[in-house]
């Protein structure tokens, strides 16, 4: 058990190294000379030279890389030009908003996609199968930023059901005291029901937008893998032995069908984290996506790199979590580990 987890941890190290190397290369690929950029238009050649020395740009690439990694591990991710604050503080402050949105969307997508896929697989050719097919093809074709706008138009402007699509909480509600950074949890801790309901209301539209996009691969994979498992011999045997249909479906078929679905989760997380940025922009969500877009517009490279690195680390750890969960679900993995 523990050794399995350790094994997976070791397995994710190459990815971690890859991520750090790529972000380092991205910092060095900056258009123009960073030293000249910091010296400003009035900077003399000596000033540029001075800054180059100070930034360590006069050293060789491998040396620069060592310095880069050392700074990263010390938590020195550079300073945001836009806010003047350390990038790490800025990101830590905004990360909970993004994670809360992403997790809600994932929860919604899984709780709709998995039953839909199972239903479609148990009744191939029925209307629900066609519905599933339609949703999966249409779902991956939706530009998230466009669906978000459409939802905001219908449910905010036309129907007035949703609050104005700006931020995590109505301005007249007070923000719950910071404990975890998740408004849903913090408001419950503070026993502030109004803030809890308010936070849910703000979350609904962006969550649906994000979930719609990742629903498709999940439903498609659930359906395909359930279809595969249901036609297997051991299911026929289980049915012939007279087991209850629900036992066959859930205990026998679903547990086996779960494995390919969990493998797709990696791709789903990639989609989620990527389109999270777009959804944050549409709903003015104060997460790290919005922060990154502002930084991009202002050519604030340290902030952008901090964002890319955070997202990549988050993704590596999510994949690690999937791997570990995979080992827990699949007994064969436990024996190997």
């Amino acid at each position: 058990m523990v050794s399995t987890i350790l094994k997976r941890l070791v397995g994710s190290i190459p990815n971690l190294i890859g991520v750090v190397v790529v972000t380092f290369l991205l910092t060095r690929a900056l258009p123009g000379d960073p030293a000249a950029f910091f010296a400003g238009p009035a900077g003399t050649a000596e000033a540029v030279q001075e800054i180059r020395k100070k930034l360590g740009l006069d050293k060789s690439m491998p040396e620069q890389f060592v310095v880069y990694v050392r700074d990263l591990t010390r938590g020195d991710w550079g300073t945001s030009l836009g806010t003047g604050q350390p990038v790490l503080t800025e990101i830590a402050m905004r990360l909970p908003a993004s994670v809360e949105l992403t997790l809600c969307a994932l929860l919604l997508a899984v709780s709709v996609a998995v039953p839909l896929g199972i239903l479609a697989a148990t009744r191939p050719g029925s209307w629900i199968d066609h519905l599933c097919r339609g949703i999966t093809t249409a779902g991956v074709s939706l530009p998230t930023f466009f669906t978000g706008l459409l939802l905001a138009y219908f449910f905010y402007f036309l129907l007035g059901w949703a609050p104005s699509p700006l931020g995590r909480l109505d301005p007249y509600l007070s923000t719950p005291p910071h404990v975890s950074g998740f408004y849903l949890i913090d408001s419950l801790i503070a026993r502030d029901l109004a803030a809890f309901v308010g936070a849910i209301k703000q979350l609904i539209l962006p969550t649906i937008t994000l979930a719609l996009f990742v629903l498709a691969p999940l439903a498609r994979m659930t359906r395909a893998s359930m279809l595969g498992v249901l036609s297997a011999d051991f299911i026929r045997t289980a049915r012939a032995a007279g087991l209850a249909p629900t036992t066959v479906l859930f205990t026998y078929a679903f547990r086996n069908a779960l494995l390919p679905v969990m493998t797709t989760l990696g791709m789903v997380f990639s989609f989620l984290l990527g389109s999270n940025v777009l959804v944050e922009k549409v709903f003015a969500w104060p997460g790290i996506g919005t922060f990154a877009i502002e930084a991009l517009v202002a050519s604030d490279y340290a902030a952008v790199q901090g964002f890319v690195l955070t997202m990549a680390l988050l993704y590596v750890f999510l994949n690690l979590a999937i791997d570990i969960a995979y080992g827990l679900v699949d007994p064969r993995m436990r024996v190997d580990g």
Partner: protein
Amino acid sequence: MAEAVMSPWQKRWTALRYVVGENPLSLAAFLLFATFVLLALVGPWLAPFDALTSNVGTPLAPPSLKYWFGTDALGRDILSRVVVAARLDLGIAVAAVSISVLIGGLAGACAGFFGGWTDRIVGRLSDTIMAFPLFVLAMGIVAAMGNTVANIVLATAIINLPFYIRVARAESGVLRNTGFVEAARLAGNSEARLLFYHIIPNILPPMTVQVSLNMGWAILNAAGLSFIGLGVRPPAAEWGIMVAEGAQYIVSGEWWIALFPGAVLMLAVFCFNLLGDSLRDLVDPRRRT
């Protein structure tokens, strides 16, 4: 009994008719695809107004008989802009996917065919790209390389690479052990000749399927990047930017500015995805889902 001997083309034609008959959506997708190609080729001549000229109509006019899709905040005709944008949007996606197919296909084929070190290096490269959430990596690349259309193409190409590497590697890994390749080797062909004349032509069908499956995604990514203000610069007509321009007006009820470019973008992606699915059914019926 003389059984009709069918040429490969006749067989394909029968399969095509079967697939279209089975799923009439495929036919619709194909017609839609033809329309988009036409728009990309001759769009600027079809557009009723100039796409960049301001005040061809009253600003923020709703759709009418004269301006089918309405006008935007600067009084530009949205229909013309949507039509003209097809070339840029599809152009970016086609350019990016072509680069991906060329580099990814070649790298993947080498990795699968030669194995060993080549395989390890290519595999590590592909894993490193996949270690990032792909859209975020594209953002990072454009931020570092500079905010230009060429870099959008490059970034989209890079994040598409792993998919082609994977397909090419898997296919050529299987092909390298087949009898006909062994026979060609025994006949004295060099390894490079085997790769280019025997392996690569045979991995083209699955690669083509991957292209059509990926094209929609490439369009979505490029439009997403310009939606957040990367790549294409504002006066230019591009679907992602047009949706971004319309975004601020949608909460005050001017829905047409964002709706039409967004809907056309969605239609384009949908059409490519449908086409990809039918092409896959045609080339590899076993993978139908």
